[in-house]
């Protein structure tokens, strides 16, 4: 066995996999990766199952050291500076740490979350079939809480497979697509138009339970209390202050605020990666378009193994050069520094 020892890691970093669906009827939320595509891409690079457990690294940096053997890793999701003992590591590539070598990752430069997959996965005891951390429910393995300095992740010794990169489609900055409902009839047409026609920013007081949005006040027709009903990832709840909260993978399974719209599943990962403070827009689409996008997203996940490419020194150098170019990204680092954990009561409570 080899292990990765965490020398330092920022907040909002935890072990996450595909999550634990199936018990929402008992109030247990599935949790799981904020960006399932990036989780799957990182796992594909090191030959793991798509939704095996990986380290979800928040906007801050992290430092890992291999102990007890050789460890092969891959990084996907938010790009950031990375190196292993001085050798650059680019996003969407695999790399190997010799015993005793250290992987150093900087702030997220684009996006919020990176996924560090480890060949052979992370050893742990699954609860409800998942290692994902859900701190409120006391679930997650090897640690039922966000990761801290000194934590150790046991893993397999590297196979010695050649390093690879993965070609993913460019994500771009198109509007985040939503479908109206389930309670859009609690809002007048001009409130719905205001929601679609406005720029929004994600507040720094956001977390894995919910992203708070900053923008114009969205007024309700009949007040902000409804009888609690079920929630999904991407539910756009509008509480009394008219500033929507988008529910994320650690959400409460039920909520009592009207939900004006829901982020479509194909855009959820891209939404989750939107950095705090960056302006973006929503776009309402039909159910037919949302479901067609969901099928395309499923096709993209299935295609990941076909998107692997050998690493040639030419590729590596280009990536490394791009990665070394940090001058234009100081603003993102500031955004990352304002990221904080919201009080759970701010996001929701029993209704």
């Amino acid at each position, binding site marked *: 066995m080899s292990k990765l020892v965490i020398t330092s890691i920022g907040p909002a970093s935890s072990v996450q996999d595909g999550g634990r*669906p*199936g*018990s*929402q*009827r*008992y*109030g*247990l939320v599935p949790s799981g990766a904020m960006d399932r595509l990036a989780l799957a891409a990182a796992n594909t690079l090191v030959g793991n199952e798509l939704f095996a457990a990986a380290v979800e690294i928040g906007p801050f940096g992290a430092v890992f050291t291999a102990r007890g053997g050789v460890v092969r890793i891959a990084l996907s999701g938010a790009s950031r500076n990375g190196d292993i003992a001085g050798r650059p590591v680019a996003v969407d590539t695999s790399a190997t740490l010799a015993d005793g070598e250290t992987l150093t990752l900087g702030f997220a430069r684009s996006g919020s979350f990176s996924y560090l997959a480890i060949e052979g996965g992370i050893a742990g005891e699954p*609860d409800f079939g998942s290692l994902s951390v859900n701190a*409120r*429910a*006391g*679930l997650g393995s090897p640690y039922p809480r966000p990761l801290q300095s000194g934590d150790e992740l046991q893993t397999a010794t590297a196979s010695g497979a050649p390093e690879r990169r993965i070609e993913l489609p460019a994500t771009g900055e198109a509007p985040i697509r939503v*479908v*109206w*409902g*389930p*309670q859009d009839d609690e809002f007048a047409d001009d409130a719905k138009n205001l929601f679609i026609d406005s720029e929004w920013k994600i507040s720094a007081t956001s977390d894995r339970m919910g992203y708070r949005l900053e923008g114009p006040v969205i007024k309700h027709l009949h007040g902000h209390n*409804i*009888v*609690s*009903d*079920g*929630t*999904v*990832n*991407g*539910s756009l709840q509008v509480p009394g202050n008219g500033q929507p909260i988008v529910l994320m993978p650690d959400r*409460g*399974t*039920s*909520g009592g605020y009207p*939900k004006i719209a*829901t*982020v*479509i*599943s*194909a855009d959820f990962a891209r939404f989750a990666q939107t950095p705090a403070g960056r302006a973006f827009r929503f776009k309402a689409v039909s*159910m037919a378009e*949302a*479901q067609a*996008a*969901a*099928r395309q997203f*499923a096709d993209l996940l299935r295609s990941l193994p076909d998107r692997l490419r050998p690493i040639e020194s030419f590729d590596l150098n280009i990536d490394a050069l791009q990665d070394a170019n940090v001058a234009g990204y100081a603003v993102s680092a500031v955004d990352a520094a304002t990221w904080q954990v919201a*009080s*759970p*009561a701010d996001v*929701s*409570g*029993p*209704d």
Partner: protein
Amino acid sequence: MAATLPPPRLLPSGDSAITVEFSRNIDDAANGRVLALDRAMAATPVEGVTETVPTYRSLLVHYDPVRISFEALGEQILALAQLPVPATTKTRRWRIPVVYGGEHGVDLEDVAKTLKTTPDDIVARHVSGDYRVAMIGFTPGWSYLSGLAASMQMPRRQNPRLLTPAGTVSIGGVQTGVQCLAGPSGWHLLGQTAVRTYQLHRDPTFLLEPGDAITFVPVDTKTFAEQDRAAAAGEIVAELMPS
């Protein structure tokens, strides 16, 4: 019974879930239809449905849009929702011990004052209720009960507490509830139970099901402490009544 039941509203919750809404209000008849549809969907699995989540007034049906479309699933749900609500047969009935007041229920005295009565009378009213688990939600094991006496109903606190104890039994609006984990709450805290409605590595992990009947039994602090130790060791200290 009418020949056809009013159809529920099918509300999209994104592209991968449908909120099947029977009422906009807390309504026992609607909750009965929610639980009946939930049972019907368990008995007649629909291709592509991944999970169902009953709430007071609606059933949230999660599905895989790659396997079934909103329209096709909606048709099947509407057909299943027309099945007659079966006369409730095997209702499980639980007796849940509660220590009321003091540090275990810090709002008992204030609730009595607000309702212009004594703490003992509030306890007497609360234990005389015959409650049903209408839904479980928010956090693991948080059980929302219907059946609170009208004389006990009062608005929630203006300032929700950030942390309330595990096992808290509380009232809020027209509901009473049993929470399992410590967490935020804006409800009025009447007491505490040693019963864990959710406990990892216990069989069953989740004690209560939507539709279960609940009565509360007052216990003293010494009994609570004993039950709490037993429950921590994995014992189910709620009593399942013979049906």
